């Protein structure tokens, strides 16, 4: 299965123009550059959810774990805990990560496990042909809400912020250079990192122009300043028509779960049989 250029023989079945291509190309380029800088690719594991986004792992020729819908984080966490020397990168949809399995995202952030979550946030269920998601704006007319949703969206960055994520960023699928920068920084960040990608779904929710008009890159922003971070995170709530900042919103150094865990784990030295025998003695 060794293919050049990190690709595989799987036929790409995303719609032409889909924002997922940008994510694919950005991550491939980041992996290549990390590899050049010394990261062995066999120490990379990609984990994905179910949705259009999930197909990404079929298109990249590195280790992968194609999980079930909504369940990227716990698998990624376990892989990282088992192999702290690995880089574990999760790809999830907005339906997948902010809806079906949002609890896992919250707890992965809370634990500050050093995994990177890249959210293909097209604000719609792509693969199931166009229903609203937790980040669709109020009034969104999808196939399950033909008369418009009645719920305001969540602001996933704010949710992650309140859950303890130590790296929070946002990009769009129309800014691949920024994506590369953000992905790389997120992967290199020691701790839980999340990059929310405003990924355009050309078929069910084409926000290309909407975003084009409103996005801007964060400048003179100190992501290590809690209040600045919070202010910028709240600037756009995924509903109102405000400017939309891109870049790293927040970044914090904090001990990771797997490091603390490893600290608890002495290496096994004597053989288990004698230890079992010893333990059994204490039970009599």
């Amino acid at each position: 299965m060794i293919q050049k250029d990190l690709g595989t023989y799987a036929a790409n079945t995303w719609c032409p123009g889909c924002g997922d291509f940008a994510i694919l190309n950005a991550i491939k380029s980041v992996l290549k550059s990390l590899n050049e800088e010394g990261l062995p690719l066999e120490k990379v594991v990609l984990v994905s959810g179910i949705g259009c986004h999930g197909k990404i792992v079929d298109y990249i020729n590195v280790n992968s774990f194609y999980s079930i819908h909504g369940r990227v984080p716990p698998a990624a966490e376990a892989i990282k805990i088992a192999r702290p020397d690995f880089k574990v990168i999760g790809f999830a949809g907005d339906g997948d990560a902010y809806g079906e399995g949002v609890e896992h995202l919250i707890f992965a952030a809370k634990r500050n496990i050093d995994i990177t979550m890249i959210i293909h946030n097209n604000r719609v269920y792509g693969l199931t042909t166009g229903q609203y998601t937790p980040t669709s704006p109020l009034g969104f007319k999808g196939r399950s809400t033909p008369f418009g949703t009645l719920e305001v969206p969540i602001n996933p960055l704010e949710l992650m912020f309140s859950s303890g994520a130590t790296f929070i960023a946002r990009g769009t699928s129309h800014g691949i250079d920024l994506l590369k920068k953000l992905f790389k920084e997120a992967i290199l960040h020691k701790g839980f990192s999340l990059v929310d990608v405003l990924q355009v779904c050309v078929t069910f929710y084409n926000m290309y122009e909407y975003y084009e008009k409103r996005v801007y890159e964060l400048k003179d922003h100190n992501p290590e300043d809690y209040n600045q971070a919070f202010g910028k995170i709240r600037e756009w709530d995924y509903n109102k028509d405000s400017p939309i900042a891109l870049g790293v919103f927040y970044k914090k150094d904090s001990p990771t779960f797997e490091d603390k865990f490893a600290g608890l784990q002495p290496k096994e030295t004597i053989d288990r049989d004698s230890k079992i025998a010893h333990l059994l003695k204490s039970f009599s």
Partner: protein
Amino acid sequence: MNDFSILFGGKAGDGIDRAGVVIARILNRLGYRIYIYRDYPSIIRGGHTFSIIRASSNKISAHLNRIDFILALNTDTLNLHRNKLKNNCLFLYDSDQVKADVGPTCGIGLAIGKILKEANAPQVMRNSCLIGGFCKAVGIEWTILEEVLRKEIPKDIDINLKVSRRGYDESRELIKIERLTQEGLPLLSGNEAIGLGLIKGGLKDYIAYPMSPSSSLLHFLAGVSKEFSLKVIHPESEIGVILMALGFAYAGERAAVGTSGGGFCLMTEGLSFAGMSELPVVIMLGQRPGPSTGLPTYSGQTELHFVLNAGQGEFTRLVVAPGDSEEAYLWSTISLNLAWKYQVPAIILSDKNLCEGVYSFDMSLVEDVKEEGPVLWDRKTTYKRYLDTETGISPLTFAGDKEAIVKIDSYEHDEFGITTEDPNIATAMQKKRLRKENSLAEELKRFRPVRVYGKADSEFGIVCWGSNKGVCVEVAENLGIKVIMPVVLSPFPLKEFQEALLGIKKSICVENNATGQFARLINRYGLSVDEKVLKYDGRPFSVDELGERIKGHI
């Protein structure tokens, strides 16, 4: 007196459980074999809770209804259980609390409230005081009690010993428990046996969300995690649990999880994923009476068909139901080995009686099974995670291997693990996954998947599974009949089961459910039992009760 039972009762929070274990350890030092049945409601304080500590010169794993000695911390204990006493007067009680008309010459009352007050001891030490009184009453030397207390309850040991000694001194000898010549054995709960068996099988990670009756396995493994370098994790939910286990398996680490019915429901999607992705995982399922929250601290056997069929799609799974602590230990090791060899989910189907029952554990009765490695990639050809082989087993390597790319997939996939919708590949892969069932069934033969007890040539046979083993074997031995107990439930060991049935004219199926789930299972193979003896109030059969019910059929 080489087979006797002590009922220790009080309110939740009185330390009944601990007291039972202390008494059991004392009797263990005298050479007795032990079984403890623990009956408690889903309450932290109050209510009525009791342990029955049965001691015998023979190995046992069931309780009796007839009680030899009652130790009562509250009135309920005497009122509810005195009718079970063989000798109506063999009881000790806290005379400051028990408001029962016991008659002047009957039993021994200890003014425990007063004793505690004088010693400035906390209420939780009432049980120690009563144990002291008990030891004197049955002629057990103080030094033995002191040793056990020091070991079991190191906290505030001095006051505790003082209180216990007062109980000892204010009691009197009623009867004498003899010291036996045999050595004591470790006392293990079923969950501890399962935990040790998993450790023996190479367990690296245990992940669980607390749920009776599986929680004590989590607590036990967390407690010994440093000794055995185990990663023990309690995540946000059972969904997180099973997905973490699969993540560990992907990384090459042997992981197990534990839960009960409701939590297992939440794991079924992950179970099916394990089937598809061929990621091994061991699930300890402790049954309790349902549906739903049901009777959370009691026992049942209602998940047999659920575990056999849980998860969408068809895939190979191993299901075993051990019957006592030795089997729990053995089959936990086997489950982990075979889950990895065949890359299938394995379910240890236990229940509250086995999980929380306490047994004298005899390692010499356990067949020696070592940790066995999975089938590994020979490195000769390009690595294919789902190589289609004759046995259905695809050799393993793991992420991190420089020469391989390891892709697992919840979609139907080709040999490399790339998603496919091709009808021919889908059919071939489905066959490959199901083919493993044959090789697994074949391999299981070497572990004797069906066990037989009692009188081998009897024409009456009790058929049972799981924790009913102990009570059925004892009843069968008493009545001179046979017991047939399949430990493996999937792949079902049909041939062995049929062989065991040879010569049986009347079979009686004993189960803790309302519909006869095992009886229904064998119908599938054209077999049937003649009678069903069912009980589904959450309480285990006692030897006396089951004996009566079986007698009605033979």
